């Protein structure tokens, strides 16, 4: 909220610099977000008096004025028609600067010398009136600097008001707070109301049909007002706090709202049928055209201000077009009311009309401040708009607005919560400073009644907060609670996730974080089958954009998008991973199923060093990284199964990843059709693993196995087998035939081509033999090895390479 320094000083004497005040307010919970000095954007402009005005002999629409600044006289050529001798006006002297970067110089206008310029409000950047030269008060003395004569300098604070502090949504509210912080006295503006003529009760009446929505409605009638622009001081104050001036009557209602925090509304009384006010709740599907000329359909239970026949305003939100104050308005019915905050919030939200009035009613205005604001505005309408305030006012208050009272407060509790030793006297004095009524019940026990504008204070803890705030958070000690004796055991899942990050980092993969929401079309891009569970998307009702409209069910799409973004900036080599959740829709009303997944993507060159290696990464680079992860998590029962199919993966270069019989994920090359759909150029390899399932098998235990004491014996053999036969199958056969002396079988070569028959491949295997208790002899190994080779040959139809014939 914008707050004018000068305006504040109407209520409280501030003996601080603006910077000091900023600090004090901020440390008391009214965070000052910015401080801006409003200084006039002109220099060298003084007050002058017009001595004479005569027509310009050479220019039809111009005049030659002689003006005085007291000690000197200047001829000035001017084209404004509103000046008369005797007028006091602003004179921009030669050398003066005015907004827009103009510097005033002596000039000759059609043969006549002009030593300066008479300015309009708009030319000086003071206000918006550009209709003629600004006419100043006759009390200003010629020669005086205009900026000081008009007291144009001000400081504007932008204060962030937290939702609980409805009482601070006004200049008076902030001033009250400053008074409490600094100890200066606070006083409301003095209101003196010259009531004259007719009694209000003879002119109008107010009926509240729904007191639950409108517990209080007060009104005054002001006759004979003249609608005109507001005086400069009022317009400048409104503009300082960010409001636009409209006309004197409307400006006064806004001014009093900003000043006292009570929104008001001015009706043109002649448009009120039967001349009276009825407050009721809206009817089903009721329509209404508000001041902004929009027809709105109201939600049920909207507060409607009506005349004897029809609605004339949406209570607490906005007035109606049909009863608006117009240029020829003469009689004003002024409304000052208290509306149910919750109802106002609902209506404002429903209508999308968070007006200044709705904002304040919604947070809760002072139910006992209604009449003060009514009288203040009536007074200003008499003073500024020349109105006659009719005798008396209407105050329908059928339902007392309950505010908290006699809240118990224990001194001991204050210090227990804060960790302080604040004395009883300081606590009670502090609360008194902010208008609380204190009754002592017994030693250390009090009853506290907050002022009616502090609608946020209803409980002991609220009082404790006030004490803390005004005592100063700075003055509260700094202590460390005893650390619990229970040791902190790091969650094994966290440990495992960090280990996965380490492994992937070491393998060259960088971590990415992508949005959890994706485009609903992602599932089509990935060619997912109609019955794929990943089509059970969780939809966002109010997404920011369509491509962030559903929660993702796979990380792959986001990773492919990351690849695309990088390709667009020239990074075609990419190794990335993400650890994030996927979401599956369950029944309505039920929270979705959330699963944490690991996803990796690999594309482009295997290495950054083109000079050294120009090979592209492939499936086995990715698989190697999966193996590393499982190895580091001590999960050994990992299997890669080719017959597990993902629609978005290359059918020949992909596999399911299993722990025992449980599928935990998949890896493979992205299907070329998916690349086309996503407009990607390069091959990419992806994997996705369900971390929940993976981590279930993780045991954070390392057990040392003794190193072998006897040497190993190696035997190599190349089997020529069907191309479709999996290496793992052959190795499994060999291992099961080998029993305990065969320690390991590994692939040392894969070859197909010349010298290998078409449709077959040569699979070179290295057999490692070792006994744990002795050195194996060659003969012993040969016998065993031949037996194993023979068994493999029999079971697979393999030939031994070099012995095919």
């Amino acid at each position, binding site marked *: 909220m914008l707050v004018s320094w000068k305006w504040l000083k109407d209520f409280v004497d501030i003996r601080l610099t603006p910077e000091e005040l900023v600090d004090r307010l901020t440390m008391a919970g009214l965070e000052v977000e910015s401080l801006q000095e409003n200084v006039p954007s002109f220099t060298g402009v003084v007050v002058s008096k017009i001595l004479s005005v005569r027509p310009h002999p050479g220019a039809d629409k111009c005049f030659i004025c002689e003006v005085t600044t007291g000690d000197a006289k200047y001829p000035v050529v001017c084209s404004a028609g509103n000046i008369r001798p005797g007028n006091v006006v602003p004179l921009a002297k030669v050398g003066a600067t005015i907004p827009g970067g103009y510097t005033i110089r002596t000039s000759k206008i059609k043969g006549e010398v002009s030593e300066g310029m008479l300015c309009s409000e708009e030319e000086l950047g003071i206000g918006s009136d550009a209709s003629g030269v600004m006419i100043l008060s006759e009390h200003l003395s010629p020669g005086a600097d205009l900026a000081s004569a008009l007291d144009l300098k001000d400081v504007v604070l932008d204060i962030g008001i937290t939702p609980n502090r409805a009482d601070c949504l006004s200049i008076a509210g902030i001033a009250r707070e400053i008074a409490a912080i600094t100890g200066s006295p606070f006083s409301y503006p003095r209101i003196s109301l010259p009531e004259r003529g007719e009694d209000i009760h003879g002119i109008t009446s107010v009926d509240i049909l729904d007191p639950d929505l409108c517990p209080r409605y007060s009104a005054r009638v002001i006759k004979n007002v003249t609608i005109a622009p507001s005086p400069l001081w009022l317009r400048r104050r409104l503009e300082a706090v960010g409001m636009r001036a409209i006309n004197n009557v409307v400006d006064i209602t806004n001014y009093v709202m900003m000043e006292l925090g009570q929104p008001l509304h001015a009706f043109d009384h002649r448009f009120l049928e039967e001349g009276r006010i009825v407050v009721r709740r809206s009817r089903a599907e009721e329509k209404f055209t508000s001041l902004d000329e929009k027809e709105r359909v109201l939600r049920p239970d909207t507060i409607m201000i009506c005349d004897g026949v029809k609605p004339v305003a949406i209570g607490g939100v906005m007035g109606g077009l049909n009863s608006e104050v117009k240029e020829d308005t003469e009689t004003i019915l002024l409304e000052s009311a208290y509306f149910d905050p919750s109802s106002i919030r609902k209506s404002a939200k429903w209508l999308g009309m968070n007006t200044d009035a709705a904002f304040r009613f919604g947070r809760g205005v002072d139910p006992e401040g209604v009449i003060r604001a009514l009288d203040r505005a009536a007074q200003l309408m008499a003073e500024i708009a020349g109105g006659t305030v009719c005798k008396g006012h209407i105050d329908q208050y059928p339902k007392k607005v309950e505010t908290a009272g006699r809240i118990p407060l224990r001194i001991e509790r204050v210090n227990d919560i804060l960790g302080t030793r604040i004395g009883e006297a300081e606590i009670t004095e502090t609360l008194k400073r902010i208008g609380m009524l204190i009754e002592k019940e017994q030693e250390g026990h009090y009853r506290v009644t907050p002022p009616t504008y502090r609608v946020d204070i209803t409980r002991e803890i609220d009082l404790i907060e006030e004490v803390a705030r005004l005592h100063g958070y700075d003055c509260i000690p700094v202590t460390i609670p005893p650390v619990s004796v229970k040791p902190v055991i790091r969650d094994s899942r966290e440990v495992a996730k960090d280990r996965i990050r380490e492994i992937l980092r070491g393998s060259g993969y960088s971590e990415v974080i992508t949005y959890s929401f994706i485009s609903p079309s992602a599932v089509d891009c990935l060619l997912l089958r109609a019955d794929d569970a990943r089509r059970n998307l969780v939809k966002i009702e109010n997404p920011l954009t369509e491509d962030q409209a559903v929660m993702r069910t796979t990380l792959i799409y986001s990773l492919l998008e990351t690849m695309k973004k990088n390709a667009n900036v020239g990074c075609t080599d990419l190794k990335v991973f993400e650890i994030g959740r996927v979401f599956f829709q369950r029944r*309505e009303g039920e929270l979705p199923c959330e699963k944490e997944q690991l996803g990796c993507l690999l594309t482009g060159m295997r*290495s950054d060093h083109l000079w050294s290696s120009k090979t592209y990464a492939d499936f086995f680079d990715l698989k190697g990284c999966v193996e590393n992860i499982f190895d580091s998590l001590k999960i050994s029962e990992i299997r890669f199964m080719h017959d597990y199919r993902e629609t978005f993966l290359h059918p020949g270069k992909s596999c399911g990843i299993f722990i025992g019989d449980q599928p935990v994920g998949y890896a493979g090359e992205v299907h070329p059709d998916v690349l086309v759909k996503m407009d990607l150029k390069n091959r990419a390899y992806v994997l996705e693993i369900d971390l929940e399932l993976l981590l279930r098998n993780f045991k954070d235990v390392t057990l040392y196995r003794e190193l072998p004491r006897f040497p190993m014996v190696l035997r190599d053999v190349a089997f020529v087998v069907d191309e479709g036969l999996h290496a793992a199958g052959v190795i499994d056969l060999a291992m099961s035939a080998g029993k305990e002396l065969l320690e390991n079988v590994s692939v040392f070569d894969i070859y197909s081509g010349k010298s290998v028959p078409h449709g077959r491949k040569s699979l070179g295997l290295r057999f490692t033999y070792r006994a744990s208790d002795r050195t194996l002899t060659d003969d012993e190994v040969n016998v065993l090895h031949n037996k194993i080779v023979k068994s493999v040959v029999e079971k697979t139809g393999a030939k031994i390479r070099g012995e095919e014939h």
Partner: protein
Amino acid sequence: MLKELEELQRQAEAELSSAKTEGEFLAVRTRYLGRKGLLTRLLRNIGNVEEEKRPLFGMRCNEIKEAISGKIDTALAKLASLRREEVLLRDKVDVTLPGRTHRYGRVHPITRVRQEICSIFAGLGFSVVEGPEVELDYYNFEALNIPKDHPARDMQDTFYIEDNIVLRTHTSPVQIRVMEKQRPPVRILSPGRVYRPDSDISHTPMFHQIEGLLVDKGITFADLKGVLTSFLKQLFGEDTALRFRPSFFPFTEPSAEVDIRCVMCSGSGCRVCGQSGWLEILGSGMVDPEVFKNVAYDPEEVTGFAFGLGLERIAMLKFGISDIRLFFENDRRFLEQF
């Protein structure tokens, strides 16, 4: 004869000192020490020497032979070693070419900050728990003392899945979930993704928070100050100045916003801190009694404090990043800076 011998040595040494190539050294050897060499010949003619001088002559002959031979061997070995070096040098690499390595990957800056914060709090006895990202309205709002239509709901816009299901707008619902299941004392930290419909240079619709909660008998606002002071000094440095100022959160009271001295300008005022010299770092406060009632804790029995902070903000300050959106664009050139 002896004189002739000495002369021969001088000659040989002179020739050796001018010899450069292997061939020249070998020629010297042949010339003096070969089968028909000058020295060999002299020795063969020892019979011509007077008898009493013969032993001396023989000894000198041998001495000279060994001296020459030794010098030649040394010279030849040196030449051989030089030649080998020459051969090796022909197999030279360009050491300025980049090393051959698999580049290591990087952990996302947000993860880095999260790990650092979690480890600081682990030292203060806080353990990590997680909660759902798609959350019931009850946990995200109502149990945290933010009823429907409450003005505090204006503080944050929300993504809705259904009327009563939202994308969590903060990590605070984890407080409730933990307290519902666990009796005090509670010391937890809960990092995770949160969502709000906002998108500009300082907002992304998804971002990260860490929530902390400590509940026990006799926990005070002074303890809150102590724990958070210790944390922020570990995170930003022992000399970091900080201030606690009153604020409002529906689920804590009294509430405090914690600022640190601007890391960019050290307090003199700059664009990053909006000229104030201070940076908002986290929100905190004593757990509101209403919240305790919602999880069936007795607020007269236990007290506690909670705090929450945004990881992006911390990362932006630590690494000098000015656009929050960079964290989620995942540009390789960005990621590889961490």
